[in-house]
C-alpha cells in the first residue's frame, strides 16, 4: 500500500507541476502532503472579471474573458501556497514570495501574517477551503493585459493541534503582468477577521 500511495502522490505532484504556468515556479514543492494536494484540488475560485482598455475599439467583455484563466491560475497558486500548504512556512514562504514584484517583496516578507497563514502555520495541520471569490479588473495595453486590480476573499477551515478554526483572507492586490507571469505590486490585506 505504501508504494502505491507514494506513486499516487508522486503522480499528483507531477500532474500539478506540469499544469503550472510556463515560467512560473511550481507550487507543489517537496513539502506538500497528499492532504495539501487534495485541498488544492478542491479549491474552487469564483472569479468575476471586467476589463479597461483604450476608449475606442476595445471589447471589454472579450478582453476580460481572455485574461481570466491565467489570473485564476495565479490566484489558485496564491491560495494554495498561502493557506492550503502550511509546510510552506518551513521554506520561508519561498513559493509565496516569488508571486510578489521585487518592489514589494521585502514588505511582503514582513507582512506574511496578513497575507497567509503566517506564523500560525506552525500549529496548523491542514486547511480545507470553504469559499474563494475574486473580483478582477484588467488593464489592457494593446492586445495584452498589463495590470489588474484583484479583490480576493478566501475562507477556510484549519485543523490544528488544539482544535479547529476558521482562516480568512480579505485582500486587494494591484497586479502587474511581467514576462514571468502575474506579480503582486501592491496590496492591502487582512487575515483572521470576518468581513
Amino acid at each position, binding site marked *: 500500500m505504501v508504494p502505491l500511495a507514494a506513486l499516487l502522490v508522486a503522480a499528483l505532484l507531477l500532474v500539478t507541476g506540469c499544469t503550472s504556468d510556463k515560467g512560473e515556479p511550481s507550487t507543489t514543492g517537496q513539502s506538500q502532503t497528499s492532504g495539501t494536494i487534495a485541498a488544492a484540488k478542491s479549491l474552487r475560485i469564483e472569479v468575476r472579471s471586467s476589463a479597461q482598455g483604450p476608449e475606442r475599439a476595445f471589447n471589454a467583455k472579450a478582453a476580460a474573458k481572455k485574461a481570466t484563466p491565467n489570473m485564476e491560475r495565479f490566484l489558485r497558486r496564491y491560495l494554495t501556497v498561502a493557506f492550503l500548504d502550511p509546510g510552506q512556512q518551513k521554506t520561508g514562504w519561498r513559493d509565496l514570495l516569488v508571486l510578489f514584484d521585487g518592489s514589494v517583496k521585502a514588505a511582503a516578507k514582513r507582512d506574511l501574517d496578513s497575507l497567509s497563514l503566517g506564523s500560525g502555520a506552525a500549529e496548523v495541520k491542514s486547511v480545507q477551503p470553504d469559499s474563494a471569490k475574486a473580483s478582477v479588473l484588467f488593464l489592457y495595453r494593446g492586445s495584452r493585459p498589463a495590470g489588474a486590480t484583484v479583490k480576493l476573499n478566501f475562507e477556510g477551515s484549519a485543523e490544528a493541534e*488544539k482544535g479547529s478554526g476558521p482562516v480568512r483572507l480579505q485582500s486587494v492586490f494591484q497586479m502587474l503582468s511581467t514576462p514571468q507571469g502575474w506579480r503582486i505590486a501592491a496590496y492591502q490585506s487582512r487575515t483572521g477577521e470576518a468581513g
Partner: protein
Amino acid sequence: MRRPLAVVVAVALAAGVAVAAVAASNYRPFAASAGQAVVVQRAHAGAAAPSFNKRITFLVIGSDSGAPKFGRGGSAERGRADSIHLVVVDPVRKQGIVLGFPRDSYVPIAGHGTAKITGAMAFGGPPLLIHTMERLTGIHIDYFVLTSFDGLSDMVSRVGGVQVNVDMNISDHAAGANLRRGPQRLGGAAALAYARARKSVPGGDFTRSRHQAQILLGGLATFQRQTKQDPARVMKWLAIMSDEVKTNLPVGELLRLALMARGFPPSRLRNVVVPGAAGNAGGASVVRLSSSAYPLFARIRAGRYG
C-alpha cells in the same frame, strides 16, 4: 447469581465498546478536538506599495499641437511646448518639487543657438527638449509625459474633474476662462482654461505656470481620493492616461509609480516657478531667467526642495 453475572457481562461489554470507541477516536488525528473551535489565525492587517530607493524626475509637457478639438493640427511631439514642468520626486523622503518654466524662457538649445525653450520640442521632439532642460538645470530627467489641449481636457473630464484651489478671479476671453476664486472641482474645459489663462492674470506666464502645476497636484489629490474609495480606479486612471498621454515610461514602471503615488502627499510637492523677468531678444518678447534660478537648480540637484 445469574442476574449479577449478566450485569457484569453487560458492563464489561459496554466498557469494552467505550474503550474501543475512545481508542478509535484517538486513532483519527484531531477527531478528539473536532468540536472544539479555537482561534487558529489571529487578526492581522498589512499594506504596501512599490518602494523606490532613488528620486525620479519627470518632464511634464503640454504641447500646443495635436489637438483637433481645438483646431490644433500636427502631432503633439512636434508642437511647441506650451507648458513645461520638471517634477522631481523623492519617494524615500516623500518630498519633491514641481518646477515650472515659462515657455518663453530664453535658453541655449543645441543646434539652434539661444531661443525660446518652447521651440526646443518643435525643433527636435521631446528628446531635444529633455536635452535642453538637462543642460540648463543639470538635473537628470528619467521620463517625459506629454499631452495636448485635447488630452488634458479629455483626461480631466474622464476622471470626473480635479479639485483645485483657484487662487484668483479670472476672466480671460482668449483662454476661455471665467473662474471665481476658491477651492472647486474643475471639469475638463475649465481645467484647460485655468491652465491657459495668461493675458488677463497678474504675473502672466509665471502665474500660468503655477496654475498648471496646481492642476497637476489637484490631479494627484483626486487620484488618491478616488483610488482610496475604490482601489480598482488605479486601472481606470491608467487606461485614461494611456489614451491621452504619450510617455517613454514602460508600462510596468508606470504602474509601480502610480501605486507609489497613492501614498505621496501632494502637500509635500512644492509648486515653484523658475524666477525670471520679461525681456526682449531680436524684437521678440522673452523671459530671461534670473541669476537666482541657478542656485535653485543646484539645491534641487542636492535633494533640497524646501
